[in-house]
């Protein structure tokens, strides 16, 4: 079964959708969308460094994504405006990454594959990495669920309940770095944020509780992967962007539903 590249592609996509669902919800609730984007952009620098030091791409991108995330947290505590800071860091790490890649003489790399993903080329070992990463993220979020949710709702409520919101923020940051690293192969650094945010945003309309929003986001993400890959196969479009397009259509549909239900 795993010999079929389409089966592997579908499984890889579903793995990313599963990891992205709970994390995407937190990114939306905590208004960290740009933060996710910046972490993803920094990953291209991780790719360049992994190739230069012949590390696994997964390890390299996790390290750089973590460094990026902690730099942002550190600087934002010192009173820089968050959006400016992220704008500076996201695009400068992307630029440094692209420049660094060009220094790698002797290694011919397909830059497009890292920017937009190469889901049809997912190998068995890639699949293993993606599902281990996704399992790790889901386990981490499930373990800390109540603490994460309380900290997201209100930091003082968390303190009063004996929860340290700073620690929970670190948990989220680590989960984000892992998700970015496993998603590169599937949708590429430029579209990772889309996989995080769009299914979660589309799920909001259909949810009355946080738990339900995570489940619906997972379902929408999975559906987007299945439909997107099918469409890409039939009309020969790039796979990663096709998946994101389907997710975007799902969001559009949910917005229309919301518009209709509020009119009644």
């Amino acid at each position, binding site marked *: 079964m795993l010999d079929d590249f389409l089966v592997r592609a579908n499984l890889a996509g579903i793995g990313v959708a599963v990891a992205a669902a709970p994390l995407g919800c937190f990114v939306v609730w905590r208004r960290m969308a740009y933060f996710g984007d910046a972490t993803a952009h920094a990953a291209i620098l991780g790719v360049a460094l992994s190739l230069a030091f012949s590390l696994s791409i997964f390890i390299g991108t996790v390290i750089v994504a973590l460094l990026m995330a902690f730099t942002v947290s550190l600087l934002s505590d010192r009173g820089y405006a968050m959006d400016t800071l992220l704008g500076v860091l996201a695009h400068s790490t992307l630029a440094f990454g692209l420049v660094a890649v060009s220094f790698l003489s002797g290694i011919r790399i397909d830059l497009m594959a890292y920017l937009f993903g190469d889901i049809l080329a997912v190998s068995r070992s890639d699949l293993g990495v993606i599902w281990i990463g996704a399992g790790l993220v889901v386990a981490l979020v499930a373990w800390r669920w109540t603490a994460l949710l*309380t900290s997201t*709702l209100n930091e003082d409520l968390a*303190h*009063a*309940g004996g929860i340290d919101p700073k620690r929970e923020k670190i948990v989220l940051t680590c989960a984000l770095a892992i998700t970015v690293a496993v998603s590169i192969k599937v949708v590429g650094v430029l579209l990772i944020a889309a996989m995080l945010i769009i299914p979660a945003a589309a799920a*909001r309309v259909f949810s009355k509780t*946080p738990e339900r929003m995570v489940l619906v986001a997972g379902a929408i993400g999975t559906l987007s992967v299945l439909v997107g890959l099918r469409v890409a196969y039939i009309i020969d479009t790039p796979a990663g962007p096709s998946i994101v397009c389907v997710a975007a259509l799902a969001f559009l549909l949910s917005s229309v539903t919301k518009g209709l239900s509020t009119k009644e």
Partner: protein
Amino acid sequence: MTLVQIDNLSLKYSKRMVLSNVSFEVSSGEIVTIVGPNGSGKTSLLRAIIGALKPSRGRVLLKSDIRFGYVPQKLHIDETLPITVSRFLRLPRNVNGSAIDAALLQAGLPDLAKVQMSHLSGGQFQRVLLARALIDKPDILLLDEATQGLDQRGSASFYKQIEKVRQETGCAVLMISHELHVVMSASDRVICLNGHVCCEGTPAVVASAPEYRALFGADTGGALALYQHHHDHSHDDDHERQYQSETKH
């Protein structure tokens, strides 16, 4: 039993000294109210007790395994986060369904379990916050202007409920309030705060303290004078003199 003991607490907030050398303690079963003008460090003091702010000097000692019931001054729930009243009541510790029903009944909101938090009115929201703080059987309730947005009747029933809870469970209450008439009738002890503890004691003692009058005499003369007429029959000369000087203009 002492639940919270504050020893020479000093607190800096973005390089500004918010509190200096604050010391007091709260024992179980006590209702203690903190009064003070805006920016006097009342909220910071509560946040230091729950551990959200680190003291720059001094310390906050707590009973081991203390349970806080905290009602913040403001709670904004992001539009993107769907959460029903009953789900909110189960944070951060899970409680069973009958406890939730009982808490909502006590708060006078029996039909709202499945309603979204964002659809509540200001008064309903405030009562749900209190219900959540009470549901976990706290050792001490920390209320930061908890009656904000309630009308007079709502506010009166809020304080009645707190008094009832104290009698039933023996939990302590440490609250910040601007409603001086309530403070004076509902508290065992009042702490008047303005960056430091100006004065402290029973409501009657604090009301007659010159420090308290310096802070509140001018702008809350009405409520204070009313209280004093009712309770110790002394006339507020300062108040009258001030009134005369105002009419001369």
